[in-house]
């Protein structure tokens, strides 16, 4: 070789190897980059909440002899207010500690004092005056742009009276009151002598357009319960709960005016601990219970037996305090429960049982309130300082347990795996368990592979080992073209053509599952006998399959004519009904039979091509060695060709598996997308991939759903990665075993 030319060859060689490494590295980089991107979006799910103190108004603005009974703050974390025992509400600008306004709540009666203030709903305060009368006041805030002052933004506050309850003569221990939007007023009084009285007042309009007032008052049946130590009324004033000093819980329904009904009375704690605080949880279904041992649990009614009656059951246990819990309240946005003890203030998320934040400033917290949006907390320290925090609680409802474990959601009778990301009502809690989706992915893949793997591999064996080369040259490209059919078309056909077809002729489908193999076996037996005949010897090798085609067509035709009759005879004309009533499996029109066919259609070409290649690549010398030793064609295939081709067949199967796991369009169109966990072939499922496609357009960017969808993409990624890695390892092993030729 001429030196110049040699140099050129060497240079080209170097260039090529660079280009190849750059290409390879670029691909690896891209894949890692994509992974990093999706992980980055999903990671904030597991970020721990933080609180940043944004204001501290030094003591001295409240005269020390007047006790502050309640605090509150606007949604913009700019204005706070205090309500003190003197009956005054003061608004304070948190930025500079300036007092904005002072309003006397009952200006006419200067000597009236407040005993207690109870909060409910959005900045509603039930003021409990010392003469036993109650008034309900709501504080409202709205941003305001002052045109006179350069359009400066300030927060305007207003007070709105929502209802008055007259004085009661006796000494009252505790009073609760609710005013709801339909004009219904409810008042509950616990008297010093232990009586519990409910008064309800309802204003309705009769058909003549006149206002009608119904009033009722009754003493509640205590059913021999111990001393009441905590009370709570739901926001609409229809459900009343009480806890006793001996660990009992009572629940009355006040739905019907004047006909209060004790629906539940149970010994909640066997050790008779004192129940020290109660609160509803947002949504008014769950009850949070705090006790003298510092524990916080949540309860709701569960149908335990077939009677359908719901009994209060302990559902979640939140992080405990070191001291007795003395106050419980809840967020107005989600299932966050606030609990306070001598030990400080805790924020816990009910459903995920996650401890979110703890506050224990020096001097403790005497009054506190969470803003309506749940992102601000205002508190009054024992030393009179007004503190406020901005809270960052990104995804309180998400934890590894809610994502992968069974969760006991409100209204469910037991813990379950549920994916249900949205519903009509506002206080609905999204249920984001990934388990049914992972299950769905694996289920669909399982049935698809069950159908595709034997067909593809046997097909590959036939074409590579038994078919004539001419036939092989036709079959192979035809099957490879199958891979080019867009999956949306396969999905469309499966959903709109195959699903109704199979549904309407279910009997025939099952019959042909029996008839087809039977006919084939019969055909093979006959062939064994007939091959001795002279004329058949001419067609024999490589064209046997021609004889099988009419048999298959015949068997299918027979099945479809006999199917309806059989269904009539065995299953009273409706196989689906029979499945449901006898086997308890519902028949979904879009089910795993359809998926197996449709996804099989997408997967078969992949497995077939790779398996066929590796089968044909087994050296002929091995085949010849086996045949020369007197092995039949099938023995040669089974004992020599298949083991030698096993790395390739395995790789093909795994690539097909990876494809089936990630397949989206077909399952999206042909499964019905119900996230159920049922292995039955007659049901559909919702796999990870289709779920992402269905939900991502509806998911608010950076919300929990959005991030969980990205997390499911990460899982899909990992799943495929694991499958491919395992496949590669097994393939290497098989290669090492059967490889060197």
């Amino acid at each position, binding site marked *: 070789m001429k030196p110049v030319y040699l140099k050129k060859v060497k240079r080209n060689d170097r260039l090529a190897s660079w280009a190849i490494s750059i290409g390879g590295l670029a691909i690896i980089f891209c894949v890692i980059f994509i992974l990093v991107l999706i992980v980055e979006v999903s990671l904030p799910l597991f970020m721990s909440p933080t609180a940043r103190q944004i204001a501290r108004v030094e003591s001295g603005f409240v005269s020390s002899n007047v006790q502050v009974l309640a605090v509150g703050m606007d949604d913009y974390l700019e204005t706070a207010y205090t309500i003190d025992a003197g009956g005054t509400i003061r608004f304070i600008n948190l930025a500079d500690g300036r007092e904005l306004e002072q309003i006397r709540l009952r200006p006419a009666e200067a000597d009236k004092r407040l005993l207690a203030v109870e909060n409910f709903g959005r900045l509603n305060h039930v003021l409990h005056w010392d003469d036993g009368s109650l008034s309900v006041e709501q504080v409202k805030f709205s941003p305001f742009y002052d045109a006179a002052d350069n359009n400066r933004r300030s927060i305007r506050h207003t007070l709105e009276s929502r209802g008055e309850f007259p004085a009661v003569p006796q000494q009252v221990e505790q009073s609760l009151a609710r005013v709801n939007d339909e004009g219904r007023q409810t008042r509950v009084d616990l008297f010093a002598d232990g009586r519990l009285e409910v008064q309800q007042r309802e204003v309705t309009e009769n058909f003549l357009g006149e206002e009608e007032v119904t009033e009722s008052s009754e003493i509640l049946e205590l059913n021999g319960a111990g001393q009441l130590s905590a009370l709570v009324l739901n926001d609409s004033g229809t459900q009343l709960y009480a806890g006793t000093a001996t660990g009992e819980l009572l629940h009355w329904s006040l739905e019907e005016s004047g006909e209060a009904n004790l629906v539940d009375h149970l010994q909640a704690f066997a050790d008779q601990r004192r129940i020290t605080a109660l609160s509803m949880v947002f949504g008014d279904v769950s009850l949070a219970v705090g006790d003298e041992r510092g524990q916080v649990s949540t309860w709701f009614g569960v149908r335990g037996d077939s009677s359908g009656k719901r009994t209060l059951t302990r559902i979640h246990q939140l992080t405990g305090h070191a001291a007795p819990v003395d106050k419980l309240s809840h967020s107005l946005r989600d299932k966050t429960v606030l609990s306070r003890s001598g030990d400080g203030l805790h924020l816990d998320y009910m459903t995920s049982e996650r401890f979110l934040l703890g506050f224990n400033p020096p001097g403790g917290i005497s009054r506190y309130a969470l803003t309506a949006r749940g992102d601000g907390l205002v508190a009054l320290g024992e030393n009179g300082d007004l503190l406020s925090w901005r809270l960052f609680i990104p995804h309180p409802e998400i934890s590894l347990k809610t994502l992968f474990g069974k969760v006991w959601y409100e209204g469910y009778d037991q813990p379950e795996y549920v994916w249900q990301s949205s519903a009509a009502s506002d206080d609905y809690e999204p249920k984001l368990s990934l388990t049914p989706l992972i299950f769905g992915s694996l289920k669909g893949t399982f049935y698809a592979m069950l159908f595709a793997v034997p067909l593809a591999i046997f097909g590959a064996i036939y074409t590579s080992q038994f078919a*004539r*080369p001419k036939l092989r040259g036709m079959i192979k490209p035809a099957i490879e073209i199958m891979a080019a059919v867009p999956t949306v078309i396969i999905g469309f056909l499966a959903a709109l053509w195959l699903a109704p077809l199979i549904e309407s002729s279910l009997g025939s489908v099952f019959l042909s599952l029996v008839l087809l193999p039977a006919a084939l076996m019969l055909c093979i037996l006959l062939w064994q006998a007939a091959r001795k005949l002279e004329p058949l010897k001419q067609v024999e090798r490589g064209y046997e399959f021609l004889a099988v085609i009419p048999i298959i067509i015949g068997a299918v035709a027979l099945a479809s004519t006999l199917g309806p009759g059989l269904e009539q005879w065995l299953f009273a004309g409706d196989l689906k009904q029979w499945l449901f009533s006898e086997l308890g499996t519902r028949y979904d029109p879009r089910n795993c039979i359809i998926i197996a066919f449709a996804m099989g259609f997408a997967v078969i070409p992949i497995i077939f091509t790779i398996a066929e290649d590796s089968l044909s690549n087994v050296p002929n010398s091995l085949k*010849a*060695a*086996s045949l020369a*030793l007197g*092995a039949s064609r099938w023995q040669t295939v089974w004992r020599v060709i298949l083991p030698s081709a096993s790395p390739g067949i395995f790789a093909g199967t795994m690539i097909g598996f990876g494809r089936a796991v990630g397949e989206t369009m077909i399952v999206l169109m042909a499964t019905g997308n119900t996230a159920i966990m049922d292995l039955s072939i007659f049901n559909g499922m919702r796999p990870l991939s289709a779920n992402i496609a269905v939900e991502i357009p509806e998911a608010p960017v950076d919300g929990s759903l959005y991030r969980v969808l990205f997390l499911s993409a990460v899982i899909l990624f990992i799943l495929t990665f694991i499958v491919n890695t395992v496949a590669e390892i097994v393939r290497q092993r098989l290669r090492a075993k059967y490889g060197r030729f």
Partner: protein
Amino acid sequence: MTPIKIENPVIEVEDLRFYYGDSRAIHGVDIAFPEKQVTALIGPSGCGKSTLLRCFNRMNDLIDISRVEGKVLLDGQDIYDKNTDIIELRRQVGMVFQKSNPFPKSIYENVIYGLRIAGEKDKSFFDERVETSLKGAALWDEVKDRLHDSALGLSGGQMQRLCIARAIAVNPKVILMDEPCSALDPKSTARVEELIGELRENFTIIIVTHNMQQAARVSDNTAFLFEGNLIEYGLTEQLFVKPQNKQTEDYITGRFG
């Protein structure tokens, strides 16, 4: 052509013509192979030695376009008869290929492959056969401690002897060998040649070779083929010392081929 007197012919070939599609590779060959002797087939490249050899165990059937005319009798039975069981035929006529082709299995499994596919299951019988066959192929001492290791870990010469062991394990009548030593070094070749000498006690061997010395060393009879015709067939000593035919003489003296 000197007709040699053959007692107990194992294989008799009568007017064999063989076609690859339309082209004829063997033009009417008549030949017979005596029992328990070594017969060498020699001839220039492409003259049809391998083709002829493959006719004896019907390995040519694997080639789609092939066609055979004439008769090949094994113990008086035409192997191209419609009723012949090819599997039974191949168990009686074993073959060793030019390139050693052990299965990607253990040495042990390689040897008993022919027995396994015949439905044999007896372990002690397997053990015994492995030992006798490997001893018969002069490989036993080298591999007796690693019978269950992969056969692919053997050397080229060992692999070829393993293939011979595999062929004799099923106890065939005839062993066909197509240039069994062409890929081996002189030492391994000598080993295999020695082995052929031993095998001739029990088997009828037909060997194709390009190596005149080898043919002279190992065979009792030699057949010279040229362009699909059998030119000369006789006792090895005679054929090499005093060839009757001009073409034979040219070939063995190295004037062509």
